[in-house]
């Protein structure tokens, strides 16, 4: 009997630790009862990160969709951040491929969960543990420059573009991404101030909406891949104050 109790005592915390990613509340809500497939979604994260304020992450969908189905969105969650949402990508046209890189915030060692959802309600899941160590000696004072609004939007096209091949685009905009949880020098909280979204339209057709969150690193960076006949790219960043920054690029196809 005592041995059984002992085993129970031991197993309780362990089972809590090993919680299924699909049962994490925000993920369960997104899955809405569907059982996610565990193969087909690639999550690329370092196993140890010295700087939790900007952890590079890649997410790529490689699964099989049923005929007639298409991928609707990709989501990233952190299990131990004050707010679990990291970033979400809504695919609005087939011209945007489900292959993204960005940088996220992780305030401690935890699990990062990636979820992909299709229009017909199929889902895919992938999770990875990341250990966040004290940011190394070698980080400079982040308060050196203080900006509040969106500044200096940048878009990089590859040096060579071949007709018919996917085109990799990298986007960046300067913004502090204030979480609303951080105290300033006097101890009062700095109000939340986020870039809310990045929208991409190709030839005036909506192609992608990236939804940023508290867990998106400052100066939101998104690498994305487009394919197809579209030429006219229209990038639109929106912040919580309703301000908008627009950048246009032509693909030389």
């Amino acid at each position: 009997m005592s041995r059984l109790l002992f085993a129970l005592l031991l197993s309780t915390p362990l089972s809590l630790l090993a919680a299924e990613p699909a049962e994490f509340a925000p993920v369960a809500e997104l899955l809405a009862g569907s059982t996610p497939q565990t193969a087909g979604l690639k999550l690329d994260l370092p196993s140890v990160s010295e700087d939790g304020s900007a952890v590079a992450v890649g997410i790529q969908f490689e699964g099989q969709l049923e005929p007639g189905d298409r991928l609707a969105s990709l989501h990233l969650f952190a299990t131990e951040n004050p707010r679990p949402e990291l970033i979400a990508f809504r695919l609005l046209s087939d011209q945007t491929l489900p292959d993204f890189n960005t940088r996220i915030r992780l305030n401690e060692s935890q699990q990062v969960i990636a979820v992909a959802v299709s229009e017909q309600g199929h889902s895919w899941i992938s999770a990875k543990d990341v250990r966040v160590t004290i940011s190394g000696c070698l980080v400079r004072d982040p308060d050196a420059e203080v900006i509040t609004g969106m500044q200096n939007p940048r878009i990089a096209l590859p040096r060579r573009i071949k007709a018919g091949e996917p085109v990799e685009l990298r986007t960046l905009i300067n913004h502090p991404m204030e979480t609303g949880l951080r105290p300033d020098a006097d101890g009062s909280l700095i109000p939340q101030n986020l870039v809310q979204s990045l929208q991409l339209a190709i030839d005036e057709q909506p192609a992608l909406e990236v939804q940023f969150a508290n867990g998106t690193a400052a100066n939101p960076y998104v690498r994305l891949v487009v394919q197809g006949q579209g030429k006219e790219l229209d990038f639109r960043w929106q912040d919580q104050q309703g301000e908008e920054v627009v950048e246009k690029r032509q693909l030389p196809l």
Partner: protein
Amino acid sequence: MPDFVEALLDAPQQLMLWGTLLFGLLLGALLQWSRLCLLRGLVHVRQGNHLKLKAFALAMTAAVASSQLLAWYSGVDLAGSIYVQDNPALPVILFGGLLFGCGMALANACTGRSLVLAAGGNLRSLVCLLSLAIGAGLALSGLLAELRVWLENLTRFSLPVSRLPLWAGLVLVAGLLFYALKGRTLWQSTPDLVGSLLVGILISSGWWLTGVVGADEFEPVPLLSVSFVAPVFETQQYLLLFTGSKLSFGIVLVAGVFAGALLRALLAREFVWEAFDSPGRLKRSLSGGLLMGVGGVLSLGCTYGQALSGFSTLAITSLVAIAGIVAGAWCTLALLKN
């Protein structure tokens, strides 16, 4: 152009890492040939021979001159490196320098020199490096990390200037140059004269690799040049955690320097296996490595990281760290003598 060259030009970080490998090989071979060593300089000065210290002074001069020229010519802002800080924890940096100097005297070689010696078959240095990696890890992200951050935040204060004005730097460098070139000592030893001059110039290539070649505003890399304490720790971590890790400037630098020194030692038939002849030497290598690891993290750099790379930016923290390292080594040498 071949496809792989095109692909490299599209990926500045890959290009930087390949450049760093070549850079490391060259640096390793040069260090093995010239036997540049601040500690050897201090030991010999105590015996009245200034050659090695003059060589190190010349390397410092060349590092400052070439890096400042690079900054002026290419627009790399050396103030973006970790050495230039507005509110540094100078007491911690000084203390770290003292620990590092003490460890270097105990282990009989600094970090970079240990790497070169280990590549030449010196197992004492290899043991010292393993111990150093543990010490650096303890202070960077391990058991002592929180204590380090607490101490740093406790002792931070704002400096009126974060780096020497150029004229003061020039005066300092002129003094070092005069010391190095005075008399005929240095002129009579080609490896010391040419080797230290080239090593000093290579410091600016490090800035160039991370500040120009690898510069990518979408995926920024830290501005770095030659340093060894944190890189030796990173290399050890990389070897242990290969899956889920990424190569960085520091790791490739350590690998390159090791390989360069090994190649040069083999070609010159200088490769000799060496080991401990007494438990006392083992103790000194282990404790020296540990002290250098912890101290090197606290002081933000070693005899290369602070005394060459840091000094080339004319940062105030580097002057403090160098003072700590020299004082720590000098006192330990005096104590060991008695």
